[in-house]
């Protein structure tokens, strides 16, 4: 269970960042007072264009960033005050590959398994499960640096899920993957949902959102402009597909005057 209450995140910008973003203000409100909740057994999607604040939101849920304002609870634990407990129950994945290329997949699994406090047996069992699922066995003793991009991506999923977390957070799950690897990943996310896990993903791709997610929050410019099942969003916006719904909502925000995208 993820509960987000009045979450706001303001970044302080360095001089360099101010120059890069062509702004005179030294702060950036990336997320502006959003609230939503997601339950186990569902895939919840944050859908929005670049810079909407999706990554910021997911990183805050994953305890990597601290909220400027508001509260986030994961399975009832506050992500700031009980960050260690929260980290035990989440697996956070991104499309950026973040593993030491010098080690082997087998060692990497064992290392992170130990850091999560798993017994050797449990680590072996999880490694066996996840490696067969993603077809990593054949590469288990090669250096990660020698694996293909798709294989590394699969391995990074396996590593992030070694502790079998209740909550799986995935930033842009299919970004940069070929169609076959992308399919393996989305199939696995569905399987996790079937196992009763809570899966939360971010995406800017309509097709991913509509095919994968049970519930959506559409984010534009740091705010949630629509939330609920896809059917509910289509009904609310009186549109026939998600893309039309998105542009309908986008026009409204523009009218509302806070679209400084």
């Amino acid at each position, binding site marked *: 269970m993820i509960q987000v209450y009045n979450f706001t995140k303001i970044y302080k910008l360095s001089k360099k960042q101010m120059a890069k973003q062509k702004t005179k203000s030294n702060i950036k409100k990336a997320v502006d007072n959003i609230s939503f909740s997601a339950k186990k057994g569902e895939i919840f999607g944050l859908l929005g264009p670049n810079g909407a604040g999706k990554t910021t939101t997911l990183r805050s849920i994953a305890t990597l960033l601290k909220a400027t304002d508001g509260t986030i609870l994961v399975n009832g634990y506050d992500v700031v005050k009980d960050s260690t407990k929260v980290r*035990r129950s989440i697996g956070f994945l991104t499309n950026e590959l973040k593993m030491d290329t010098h080690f082997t997949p087998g060692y990497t699994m064992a290392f992170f398994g130990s850091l999560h406090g798993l017994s050797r047996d449990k680590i072996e069992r999880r490694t066996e499960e996840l490696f067969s699922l993603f077809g990593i066995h054949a590469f288990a003793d090669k250096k990660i640096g020698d694996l293909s991009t798709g294989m590394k991506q699969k391995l990074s999923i396996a590593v992030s899920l070694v502790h079998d977390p209740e909550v799986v957070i995935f930033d842009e799950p299919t970004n940069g993957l070929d169609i076959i690897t992308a399919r393996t990943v989305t199939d696995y996310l569905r399987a996790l949902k079937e196992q009763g896990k809570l899966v939360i993903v971010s995406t800017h791709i309509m097709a991913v959102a509509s095919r994968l997610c049970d519930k959506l929050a559409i984010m534009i410019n740091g705010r949630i402009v629509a939330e609920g099942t896809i059917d509910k969003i289509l009904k609310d916006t009186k549109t026939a597909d998600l893309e039309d719904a998105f542009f309908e909502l986008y026009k409204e925000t523009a009218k509302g005057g806070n679209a400084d995208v």
Partner: protein
Amino acid sequence: MFNVILRKELKRVFTDKRLIFSSFILPAVSIFLTYIVLGMMFSNMVGDIREHKASVYVQNSPGSFREYYDTISNKVNMNIEFIEADKIESIKDSILTGEADLLVEFENNFEAKTAGYLDREVPPEIKTYYNPSEDYSKDARGNFIDQVLNGYEREILADRFGNINYTTAFVIDRTNEEGVIVNEEKAKGKALSMIVPMLIGIILFSSAMGIGLDTIAGEKERGTMSTLLLTPVKRETIALGKVAGLAVVAVISALCSFVGIMASMPFASNMLMAGGSGGIPEFTLGQYGQLLLIMLSLVGVNVGLVCLLSVRARSVKEAGSYVAPVFMIVMVAAFSTMFASGTPETYKFAIPVYGSISAIKAVLNFELGIDQFMVTVISSVVVTLILIKAITNTFNNEKIMLNA
């Protein structure tokens, strides 16, 4: 958890051929080769001056001088040429360029003037021309006065007194066999303490620097750090594990450098002992223990510094640019202990790095007091703890850790 992180840090280094080469083999071999080359140059320089046959030009010399010189010419290591006055200017030019070493000019009527000493107020003069910036020239002048002119003077005096023995008023230390009052061990220590503490200081820092940049800043650059931050391990534990891992590697790397130095000893001892003949003095077990503790606590400070700077940088390159100025400061601190004479005031031992290197020097000199030892070690431990705390805080800083 600490163990898991420490073991991984060590495995990272010890299974990577590139890192093994760059942090253990390369420093040892390069220090070995450097010292062999420097040591040989140093010995050559010393030996060269001793062997050099000085070229001395003598002008206007009286016949009695030539006669005297013939009797000793095979005992002095000089080549004397008797010249005419017209050559003087060209000889002076040669002395300036280092081709000639010494020009000696006798006053006119030298013999008559020495013989008529009863009627004269001042004795006649012998002028020497030499170049003090050239070792050969400086030594030639000293040797010429000691070995040639002093003897010649005694000949002249012997003529005046009628007996060569009357020319000797006293002798220095003829029967005194205990004239040299020195503690052998301390003398050896003194020679050792000239250069060695500075070397230790620099090696201990550079070994931490090399590997710290690669493992810690590298980890951030590759983005693997954030995966670590997502595990339920306490930030303190991660910081400690990293520092400890780096410390172990730095110590081993420093040991390799010392092996390199020891291996170069047969060629470089002359230089490392600052020209002293000594060898290693007999230290007590307690002194070895002190040395070990001082060095280990210094490793803590070095590793803490390198870790902190590396963690705060986005990339290996950036970390390098932070660490380089610190390395300069460490080098200056190390060098300044070389020129400090005597033991510094006790409070100075609390200065990180400088205090430790001074303390190492004082141990080698048999001069380190227990209070100074305690100040050194406690100050280093406290600084290390502060640095670890700062590293932990950095791990909690989202802006720095996510390179945002």
